């Protein structure tokens, strides 16, 4: 998410776009906490820099073996 800071109006709009408007209206602090928590978590992630590093996959052609 570009720029990890989000003002309250933007958070409200984002929550509505995600279908979480009801929750935002009832508990705006919960959505703020979730947003800040998610972005903090994402910043702690040690992202691989080599684009050749592929993800692990759930699906493999022969049932995971």
């Amino acid at each position, binding site marked *: *998410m570009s720029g990890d800071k989000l003002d309250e109006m933007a958070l409200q709009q*984002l*929550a509505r776009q*995600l*279908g*979480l408007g*009801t*929750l935002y209206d*009832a*508990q705006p602090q*919960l*959505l703020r*906490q*979730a*947003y800040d*928590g*998610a*972005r903090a*978590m*994402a910043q*702690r*992630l*040690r*992202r*691989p820099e080599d684009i050749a*590093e*592929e*993800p*692990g996959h*759930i*699906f493999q052609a*022969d*049932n*995971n*073996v």
Partner: protein
Amino acid sequence: MSRPGDDLAYLSLVEVAARIRNGELSSVTYAQCLLDRIAAHDGQFDSFLRVLAESVLQEAAAADQALLDGAPLGPLHGMPFGLKDIIDAAGLPTTAHSQILAQQPPKQDDAAVTKRLRAAGGILLGKMATHEFALGGPSFDLPWPPARNPWNRERFPGGSSSGSGVAVAAGFLPMALGTDTGGSVRNPATACGIVGMKATYGRVSRQGVVPLSYSLDHVGPMTRTVADNALMLNALAGHDPADPASADVPVPDFTAQLGQGVEGLRIGVIRHFHNRDMIADPVVAKAIEDAVRLLDELGAEVVEIETEPLAAYSTCNRIILVSEAYAIHRHWLAERPDEYSASFLERVLPGAFLTADDYVDALRLRRRLTAGFNRTIRDLDGVVVASSMDPPFVIDDAAEIALKYSRQARAPFNLTGNPALSLPIGFDGDGLPLAMQIVAGNFQEAMIYRIAAAYEAATEWHNRRPSL
């Protein structure tokens, strides 16, 4: 303190199965003993969401008749079991301990694991309390209360497979099923002083289980002894084409190496998880050191190993878990948010604000961490690692929950998929259980059981009982 009924209720699965098979004990007598015990005590511990008193006695009577008729008997013949209530059983609703599913109609079919336990002779005794959808909790704002620790009902029993852990530890059941996405079989096993196995990803089918995180979910057996756990995994393991992650690999007899001891085995110990990356309570650290010393005295070669910092695994696991969980719950979160518990919302909602690149990068890191961990343990038979960093905390203390809930070293093995077992290794000064994990290479569950059984045979922790 031992009370009437304790002796039978606390017999091992292996022992009861043998007695039922040779006619020393009827399945009806055993089931009635458990039902009486549940009726007398579960009001304090809330481990069951539903007790199937009538059907369990009917099926137990049929099991006794099958024995008289000389019918072929499965290895779990006449043995009651419990299901975490995110696992389907035909004729019963699966509530996930949530208002969201509380009014669901009964399921048409058993989950694959339910079918397997029944095919082995098991009898479903009840559906067990869980954290809401295996993620929230302990919660006091749901249609059912949270399960409580039988060693001290004011303490957290671990989660999310809380009811399963409590019921096995309390002698209400000889075996139960839990699920484990970030440690949820091993957490209640640790907190309740029992044995819980998260087998290799793909070893046990997840078909018919409410998903929390497709790529991290496991189903696992919970019992009071290592041999019981191996016997239960024998019934559960095997390829299932209905589970897209199911591994088509040979299934050994998981009891085959029990009793072979640890002499000559090379066992790694990862200390930095609990003494550098996250500082464990001294009583936990000491119990792990005592256990490692005992394995050494029993003839294992114990070597200290290092892997990536615990936080690298934990963050990666959490991003994948909440991203997948949010995708599963997005629709209900939009339409029925007020039906969720506060703690579920708190844990799942960050998933709304993780992005595609966060998720993909976590999956990329996952592959690197998994490969690295398996390289590190390549020449080892098993690895000892901490489970919880603290003894069970007070169940309704929000500050303690916030502080201690995530202080654990179980999530790395959901991420890597390696098999990992929680094993009791003592008690703290307040009489609360302590545990360690034993981990091994993929599909090496039999070796884990071998190491765990050697430790168990040399100690008495598994013979202690909570005073209900």
